[in-house]
């Protein structure tokens, strides 16, 4: 129950509904048991003696009880529905808010599918259990209590005789739960296996087709599909084993009651009406008993769901505002970035070497810093640390002389704009995608940003222009087109610090060149960081930093670096090996050296 205590704050404010749900159902149950009593009166006091005066009253009473019962049922259903919905709504909002503030390090190891299932299936499970399952579970208890009490009032020895089946049924129901639980778990696994096999097949369709590996894919899929089928058949086998036997045992008690009760009616120690009403009550009690296994299963499932949700909700937020964090005045920010002896190691990757070690950098307003290096050299780490996506391990990063850890997170990030290596567009129009960081942007400024990013022309060629819906569920754009929209998004903000993390890799050189020229205008007096693999992208940087495994191995301007042996010059030579003869100059000799 610890889990439900943890979730209490999400439903306890609706305890009225909870009460309504439980009491409504319990009252309906109690009223249902009155009906067999009325039958007893009908048979024993009216039909058998042949005195029918009270019949109309009795019939109307029966109808009245049915109506009252229906009303109580509605109270249960309505309250349970409201309770569950409000709970689900609160949980969903809380989880979503949590997801918004969890740091990058959380997402480095989280999986989309897993988070999705917590926010959908798990919340659904809790909604149903708190809304209805809990009341039903309690109601089963009430039913047994009320039902057997009523039976005892009519005839306690017969009640005791039938009471024997309760432990037997409870035992079977629990065994059922015990058997069905692992089956449900493997069904979940089977569903996700099937989904993954189909999803990868579709997303990787180009790869699949180019290797002509449809037969292989078919085999993979078949495995998943068979697994799905077999697990469902295993589930059916458990059902087939338990459901009929539970029903049989319940029915056995009815036969027993009628047999013993019948003899007692013959011996006149019981009236016919009493027997009929006992039979009716027993029927009512045993009917929901076989669902006990389900209810228990429901409870354990929703408990597990609650645990998973609480785990998410209690995730620590490691990157957050310090006490009395400084709120930046947008106009006053200069964009002077300074790295002082920064070292950093990715959380959850403690066994690996530092991603950045003893990194120093001074980027005054108006400067352009280029970063070059191989995979895992720490280029992306540098820009992500500036955004405070992670906190530095040692050293400090300052913006205009203030440690960024002392700046309010939102106001810090508002000064910056980043274009990521892997472009992400949201499912909305191109216009909204460009205006993502600035919802109140004017049409002109959006178009201007698109023009600066060399995106305006191709956007206008699309059938719906700026109103074209893009993203996962929208129109497909090429990598270069997506990158240009992402660049426009960043430029629209007029950031004090702009970071391009390999953001022009899918563009041809001419386009990139034009974008760079517009950047120079827009970013005048502001700070720009460019991560790139092309010399042409880095060529004009005020300082180029070459990184290798987290350390700075070279730094300087283009002209200096091409004169030093090292990665920068090697790259330059690879990329400009096809230099036309008449354009060749001093670097000709160097090329011969490297062969």
């Amino acid at each position: 129950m610890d889990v439900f205590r943890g979730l209490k704050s999400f439903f306890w404010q609706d305890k009225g509904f909870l009460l309504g749900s439980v009491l409504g159902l319990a009252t309906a149950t109690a009223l249902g048991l009155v009906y067999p009593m009325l039958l007893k009166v009908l048979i024993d006091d009216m039909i058998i003696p042949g005195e029918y005066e009270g019949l109309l009253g009795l019939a109307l009473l029966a109808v009245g009880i049915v109506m009252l019962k229906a009303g109580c049922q509605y109270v249960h259903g309505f309250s349970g529905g409201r309770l569950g919905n409000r709970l689900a709504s609160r949980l969903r909002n809380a989880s979503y808010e949590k997801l918004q503030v969890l740091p990058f390090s959380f997402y480095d190891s989280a999986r989309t599918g897993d988070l999705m299932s917590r926010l959908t299936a798990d919340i659904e499970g809790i909604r149903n259990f708190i809304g209805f399952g809990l009341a039903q579970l309690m109601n089963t208890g009430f039913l047994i209590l009320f039902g057997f009490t009523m039976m005892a009032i009519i005839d306690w020895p017969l009640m005791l005789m039938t009471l024997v089946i309760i432990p037997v049924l409870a035992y079977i129901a629990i065994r059922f739960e015990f058997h069905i639980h692992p089956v449900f778990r493997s069904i979940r696994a089977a569903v996700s296996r099937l989904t993954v096999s189909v999803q990868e097949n579709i997303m990787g369709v180009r790869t699949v087709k180019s290797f002509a590996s449809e037969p292989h894919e078919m085999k993979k899929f078949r495995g998943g599909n068979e697994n799905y089928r077999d697990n469902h058949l295993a589930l059916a086998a458990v059902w087939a084993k338990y459901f009929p036997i539970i029903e049989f045992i319940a029915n056995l008690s009815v036969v027993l009651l009628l047999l013993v009760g019948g003899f007692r009616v013959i011996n006149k120690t019981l009236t016919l009406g009493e027997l009929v009403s006992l039979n009716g009550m027993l029927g009512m009690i045993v009917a929901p008993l076989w669902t006990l296994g389900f209810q228990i299963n429901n409870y354990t499932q929703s408990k597990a769901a609650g645990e998973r949700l609480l785990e998410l909700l209690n995730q620590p937020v490691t990157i957050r505002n310090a006490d009395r964090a400084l709120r930046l005045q947008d106009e006053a920010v200069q964009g002077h970035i300074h790295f002082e002896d920064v070292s950093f190691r990715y959380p959850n990757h403690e066994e690996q070497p530092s991603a950045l070690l003893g990194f120093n950098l001074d980027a005054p307003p108006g400067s352009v810093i280029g970063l070059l290096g191989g995979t895992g050299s720490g280029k992306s780490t540098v820009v992500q640390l500036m955004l405070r996506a992670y906190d530095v391990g040692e050293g400090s990063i300052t913006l205009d002389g203030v440690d960024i850890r002392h700046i309010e997170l939102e106001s810090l990030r508002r000064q910056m704009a980043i274009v990521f290596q892997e472009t992400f567009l949201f499912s909305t129009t191109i216009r909204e995608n460009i205006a993502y960081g600035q919802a109140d942007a004017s049409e002109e400024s959006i178009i201007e940003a698109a023009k600066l990013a060399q995106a305006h022309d191709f956007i206008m060629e699309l059938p719906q222009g700026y109103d074209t819906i893009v993203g996962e569920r929208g129109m497909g754009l090429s990598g270069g087109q997506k990158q240009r929209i992402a660049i426009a998004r960043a430029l629209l903000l007029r950031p004090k610090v702009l970071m391009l993390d390999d953001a022009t890799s899918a563009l041809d050189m001419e386009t990139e060149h034009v974008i760079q020229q517009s950047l120079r205008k827009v970013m005048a007096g502001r700070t720009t960081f460019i991560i790139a693999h092309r010399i042409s992208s880095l060529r004009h940087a005020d300082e180029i930093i070459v990184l290798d495994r987290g350390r700075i191995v070279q730094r300087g301007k283009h002209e200096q670096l091409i004169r030093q042996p090292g990665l920068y010059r090697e790259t330059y030579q690879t990329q400009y090996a096809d230099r036309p003869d008449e354009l060749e100059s001093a670097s000709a000799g160097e090329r011969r050296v490297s062969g």
Partner: protein
Amino acid sequence: MSRQFQYQDDVLIEKNFNWKQMARLFTYVKPYRGDVARVVFVMTVFGMLTKLAIPFLISMAIDKAIKPADGQTSGGLLCLFMGIMLAMYALRWWAQHYTIRQTNSIGQKVIFDLRTALFKHIQGLSFRFFDKRPAGSVLVRVTNDVNSLQDLFTNGVVNSVIDIAQLAGIIIILLALQFKLGLAVMITVPLMFIVSSSLRKRIRFAWQTVRIKQSRINSHLNESIQGIRVTQAFAQEKENIGFFDRMNLSNIRSWNFASALNQLFGPVIEITSAVGTLILLLYGSHLIQSEQMTVGVLVAFITYVSYFWEPITRLGQMYSQLLISMSSAERIFEYLDEKPAVGEKPDAVDLPEVRGHVRFEDVEFGYESDRPALRGINLDIKPGMTVALVGHTGSGKSTIVNLLCRFYDTVKGRVLIDGVDVRDVKLESLRSQIGIVLQDTFIFSGTIRDNIRYGRPDATDAEVEAAARAVRAHDFISNLPDGYDTEVQERGSTLSMGQRQLLSFARALLADPRVLILDEATASIDTETELRIQEALGTLLADRTSFIVAHRLSTIRHADLIVVLDHGVIVEQGNHEQLMRLKDGHYRGLIEAQYRFLSA
């Protein structure tokens, strides 16, 4: 509401019931009609009859043994009736066991067949199909849409037959037991029917709204998780939370409405059935009083009447379920009716082992009919040549390789490999001899080893390692926690782009194709990796016809033939030296531009 995010709906609004589709759906049950017949027989004969016999037996026990009208009670008869009851229950036990197993087995088999058919069909569809559709919506059809038919095939079909039989059985019994009372009680049936169907219709519409809103929420959740880094970098958390809050609120409102309506159903049915109870008690007592009926029959009647609503309610639910299933079925059939744009000819033959002679004869092609992507393309490429395709974005470079692999068919002209038209051969035999490395090659979840082996599943571990060494991928793989057995997940996100690309090079090399295509394969690779790949390229390109599509001109300098494209037309071709000699040539212009950018 702000238009911050927009989601198109995959859910169809309910239409008129489509019998044709229903019939088509049931062709998938046809192979199992014997099984269906057996289970329906067992369930009606043993399941239903045993159930309907019980109240009758009880009434007999009351009227003949416990409380006969003539006062002649009989313990022996009571034992006999109870014995028969017990036997009935035992039969029922077996019948239920059999039914549950059989219905599930039929349902799962049908679902399995349907899903296999759908997936197989999708595998055969061409790029044109995938170009138009986001991956998510294709996925949903193969998984959710098929799953939503599961209940229909497992329980729906069989139970409906049984329910109808049960309903008929009860009506017959009621009329046979006491004709007048039976008729009187059944007066409430039309009333019940009208009330329940009008209410159910509203409930259905209400849930439909909820489903649509729910699916939008799911889309947004998925997207917001995947785009979280952008959100945080642009400090849009609050805006997102506001958007979600409104979305959630609107969903909960519809849900509250639907749920309140839904909860009304049970009570309303119960109140309606109270009318029947009233008639039963009053008229039934009257009949006993006038000695037209016995007490036992009244008790049996009460039980039968309570059985009466069960199949009616279930059939109503079944109908709602059927409507939802039909919209799923419609979406599934839409895909099954999609014809592959690139089809195999019936007399297609296997392409013999390729030497690598590629010819394009006057090829014309367009992705959309009004905009040609390629015009008048003539190429003659000798086995073993390295061909570079150069030009701006949209000039048609990738289209040429797409046509070579026959991902699309030409509008005019022919593509020949070793003199054979690619349209005359089996697709598998063509594509298995061509290898492509794409800009963003897909990494499947599984081990690194499996991924390298993707194009040739029977390769040995030693061969896998050799391929990895040849493309300089061995070092980084060995540094991974489990080496070649490291599991990669979600599109290989644990690897960097450069590493993913090296894997795809290894994959292509291991498959050992006769024709190799590198389609912007090095665009997103970092410098250091690229240096390594440059070294590996020699190994990769040796002895095979290869096509290189590249932005970076440095990668193609040594190509035997450089083809320069502009707006779908070949404007120049030749080797580097030849093309550089052309004053004002396109190629020369591109090369020079690089230096202009460098010094500008």
